[in-house]
């Protein structure tokens, strides 16, 4: 980055006072840097500084090589000794960067802040006016980006957001700033939109690139706040095989809860590019959703072997333990992931889940709170906090958190669903119905096809609500739909059964309770209901379909045969019986 800028400067420099071919040597240093022979570059850069008698540009490159060989303090000292950090913006940036690398945030910030007090005019005069503007502009956004990073590292997120935003406005191509804003969930969906609209695309990009940049950025924006379809504009069809675009597509599928489709794509991507860093977290998430423990185990092992320093590796391990319901190791590894990268949001959320699955609500909430502070623009931690409150029977607080989540993501069906559940618990069925229906509408606007399995609870809850509102037909309809998207679910069966009971159709009710019990035998609700309904059914049901069988009213004539002969018959038949028994030893009673 800095190299290009300085290159322009060098072309303007005076010829060196010695007779060595310094331009050629400088060229050589850059070549070495390109080829990652940093030590050779360092050696020659050092020599050039002496040969050119302390040319600013050469010093900059010397510092650069020091930086590249990891000698941060040396580089910084070099630049500051020559006071270059105060006079040259590129050098200032590099010096601050060195301190940033050493995690000396305050020091780095001091270097950057010094300029503010400096008199810029002074410097301006020494350069050609227009050229300086260009250089200033080019370094300005780097400085803003760095400043943002420093602020973020110092937990000063609001200032960091400002800096990133500024950097992006100064250079719309500065993807890093954009990525940090989006990936660290710093902005709400609304703010992200505003940022996109405020980008000076038309002034900074050539005509034909505007659409490209806009598409690529918008493609990255938040996806989980509401379900939506993914479309590639026709003019950019050429990008359809770009991994990034494909991964974004699968991410879209993930947030639309079409996990199988997402899994298909991520597996395909990882086959081509096994360690695609953008795809990996998504792949891990989808493996968890689909409960593919074996695959996750293998993947986590590979990642830990290859990238023990990346949080995503440990995140994968943690997720594996979470999936096999071993919260203790899960916590340990997720914790490791968060120490590697403090702002790694997914790990914090998973950390919270590991407590939540053990019913340790307070600790879970603590983890979610941390996550919510780290990811200001993300409503998920708040949603989970609300859920935990709901589980601890604190409906009031739960509702408050849900509304907060709703204010961040007003169109997320998950939040609307939870709001509906709370309303249901408060016995405000009309409100619950409204929320559920709204959520359903949001879900349905996606995908021309059938609903995905994930929404089975939503449909069932709608069914329950309608039942409470005594709209039995409607309720049945919703339960049926739930049954279609997620077949063989015992609770759906018993809900349908219950509906039929209330509608007075005990015959069907018995059938459905049977089905429910056939799948889950220890379902107390269905068992009790079945017994009651069975009794009711049997007391109301006619013993036969037709009941016009004549009664025996008048005794008929007794046909009495001769006494003696009858006795004979009797004896005979007895005899016959016993004989057959004796011969064949068969008990004919068993035949049926």
């Amino acid at each position, binding site marked *: 980055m800095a190299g290009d800028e300085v290159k322009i400067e060098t072309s303007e420099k005076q010829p060196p006072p010695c007779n060595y071919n310094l331009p050629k040597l400088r060229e050589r240093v850059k070549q070495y840097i390109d080829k990652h022979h940093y030590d050779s570059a360092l050696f020659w850069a050092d020599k050039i500084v002496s040969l050119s008698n302390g040319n600013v540009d050469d010093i900059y490159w010397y510092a650069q090589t020091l930086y590249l060989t990891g000698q941060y303090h040396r580089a910084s000292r070099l630049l500051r000794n020559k006071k270059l950090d105060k006079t040259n913006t590129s050098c200032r940036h590099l010096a601050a960067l060195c301190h940033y690398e050493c995690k000396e945030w305050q020091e780095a910030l001091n270097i950057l802040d010094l300029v503010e007090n400096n008199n810029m005019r002074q410097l301006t005069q020494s350069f050609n006016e227009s050229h300086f503007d260009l250089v200033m502009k080019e370094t300005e956004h780097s400085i803003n980006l760095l400043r943002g990073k420093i602020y973020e590292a110092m937990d000063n997120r609001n200032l960091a957001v400002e800096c990133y935003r500024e950097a992006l406005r100064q250079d719309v191509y500065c993807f890093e700033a954009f990525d940090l804003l989006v990936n660290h969930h710093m902005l709400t969906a609304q703010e992200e939109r505003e940022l996109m609209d405020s980008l000076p695309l038309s002034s900074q990009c050539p005509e034909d690139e505007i659409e490209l940049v806009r598409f690529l950025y918008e493609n990255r924006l938040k996806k989980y706040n509401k379900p939506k379809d993914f479309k590639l504009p026709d003019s950019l069809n050429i990008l359809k095989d770009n991994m990034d675009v494909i991964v974004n597509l699968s991410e879209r599928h993930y947030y639309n809860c079409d996990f199988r489709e997402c899994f298909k794509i991520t597996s395909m991507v990882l086959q081509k590019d096994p360690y695609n860093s953008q795809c990996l977290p998504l792949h891990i998430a989808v493996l968890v959703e689909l409960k593919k423990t074996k695959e996750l185990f293998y993947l986590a092992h590979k990642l830990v072997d290859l990238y023990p320093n990346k949080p995503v590796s440990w995140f994968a391990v943690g997720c594996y333990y979470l999936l096999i319901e071993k919260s203790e190791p899960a916590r340990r590894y997720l914790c490791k992931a968060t120490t590697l990268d403090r702002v790694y949001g997914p790990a914090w959320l998973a950390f919270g889940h590991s407590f939540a699955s053990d019913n340790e609500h307070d600790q879970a909430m603590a983890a979610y709170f941390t996550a919510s502070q780290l990811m200001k623009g993300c409503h998920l931690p708040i949603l989970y906090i609300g859920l935990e409150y709901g589980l601890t029977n604190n409906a009031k607080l739960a509702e408050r958190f849900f509304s907060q989540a709703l204010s961040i993501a007003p169109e997320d069906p998950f939040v609307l669903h939870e709001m509906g559940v709370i309303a249901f618990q408060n016995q405000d069925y009309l409100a619950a119905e409204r929320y559920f229906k709204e959520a359903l509408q949001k879900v349905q606007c996606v995908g*021309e096809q059938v609903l995905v399995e994930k929404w089975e609870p939503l449909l069932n809850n709608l069914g329950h609500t309608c039942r409470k509102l005594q709209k039995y037909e409607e309720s049945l309809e919703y339960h049926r739909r739930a049954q279609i998207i997620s077949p*063989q679910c015992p609770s759906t069966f018993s809900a349908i059964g219950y509906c039929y009971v209330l509608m007075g159709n005990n015959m069907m009710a018995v059938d459905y309770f049977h089905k429910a019990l056939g799948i889950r035998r220890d379902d107390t609700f269905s068992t009790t209901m079945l017994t009651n309904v069975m009794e009711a059914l049997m007391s109301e049901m006619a013993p036969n379909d037709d009941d016009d069988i004549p009664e025996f009213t008048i005794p008929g004539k*007794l046909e009495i045969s001769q006494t003696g002969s009858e006795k004979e018959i009797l004896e005979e*038949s007895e005899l016959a019986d016993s004989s057959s028994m004796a011969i064949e030893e068969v008990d004919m009673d068993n035949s049926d």
Partner: protein
Amino acid sequence: MADFSTCQVFELPNLIQIKTDLIRANKECSRRKLLNSAKWAAELSSAVDASVDYQQILLLQEPKDYYDEYDKFALASSYFDLKEYDRAVYFLQECSSSNNYFLYLYGRYLADEKRKVDNASDSIGPPDHLENEHLKTLKIELSKKYIMKELDGFCLYLYGIVLKKLDLLKEALEMLVEAVNYEPLHWGAWLELAVLIPDKETLLSLSLPNHWMKNLFLGHMYLELQLNEEALKIYQGLVDGGFSKSTYIVSQMAVVYHNMREIDMSVTAFAELQELDPYRLENMDTYSNLLYIKEMRADLAHLAHRCCDIDKYRVETCCVIEKPLLFIKIKTSKAVMYFQRALKLNPHYLSAWTLMGHEFMELKNTSAALQAYRQAIEVNRRDYRAWYGLGQTYEILKMYHYCLYYYRQAQQLRPNDSRMVVALGESYEKLERLQEAKKCFRKAHSIGDVEGMAIIKLAKLHERLSEETHAAAAYTEYVNEANRQGIFNPEDLSQAYKYLANFNFAQGQLDEAYAAAQKCTEFQETREEAKVIQYRTLEWMTVVGL
């Protein structure tokens, strides 16, 4: 029957047409590895006597895309034959021809089914948790294709069975109806459809193709719905129409006779069947049941040995072997073992589940019996024996409401079987709902009581309710019947005579009272009482002055 007007027998097309159709069906099905349907079509076709121009048939145009992917098809079909389904599926990925696409989906389905059977535990009963991930994936894929209308008749059939497996019976029914409309020659689709039709109303409401195959389907359906006369009519029509040599039709007719309790006719039909096709195992379990009822032991033993020789590991064989075991009273646990083997071989084999339920009842293992019966109902809801068995089991468990429910189900399936009605009546009696009980016994008597128990039970009920005239009437009926048939329970009969004697005495009909009392004296238990009545009757006679 008037309401069957829409399901009348169709005019059969000429035999050449039928035979051509069947040969084509066989080809289509065997290319798709629908082996049973292919076999069925071939069997039927070989029984039809018609001269067909084979050149013409063999030259039938294969679809063009079939040859485009012929390599993949050949490879996959060999894997299929060796039951390496997953492997076949792998090589069929991304095939576009309809035949290969069907094989791809069918392979996935079969692979999953095979895994499920292999992983199933030895114990009976449903698995602890339903593992249907694969089926759901298949369902989603098929539903997407279905919406885009890209499924052919065979894929629709597959979609139907997947839906059925997922308990979405209504949707499955629709799908299979569509499948038979697309591909009326695919017998498997008709069979699957038959399982989903619970009653004749549903049958009449379906829009089925007016194809000659519908005749065969209706015959099968009527048989399943226990509408035996109608079934017989259809099969007779088919026999007259040129199918007389078909083993399938003959065996179906034999089963019809069996259901109609025309045992001799049925045995003859089965014997004929054995002549036609000595190595046939299908329906042999029904035959063995007949032989058992007729107590033709030698034949039964012969049949069992033969079946065992033909194929020891067929479900039918397991059921046939079990019958002689009943005769020689080998411990039923051994029979259970045979059933378990049968079910391991084919978990969807209905009779085995039901019979296993009976065996568990014998062994007094009620919970296992319940499981077995429930499985039987899962396989086929129309199996009245399983419903009846469930009722009996709950009766033992003294849960009479449940028991009522199950007997009622069984009775609805076989409205003219007195055993169910008597069982219903007994349950009502146990619940002290005597009016209903009386109704049941009356009904049982009116439809021809097989066991002769209904009327005496009715009489006793009347007696209990002190409805004397009714009781007397019923007892009289019983006595008359007993005398006519010569079969009775001495204890019941003596009770009947005693009651009648007392009743007539109270009514002042002294002659009858005397006669009845006279009868009573023939029985050990009532002899003393009867003498007292006789004595008093004579006394009265003299008083009255006769």
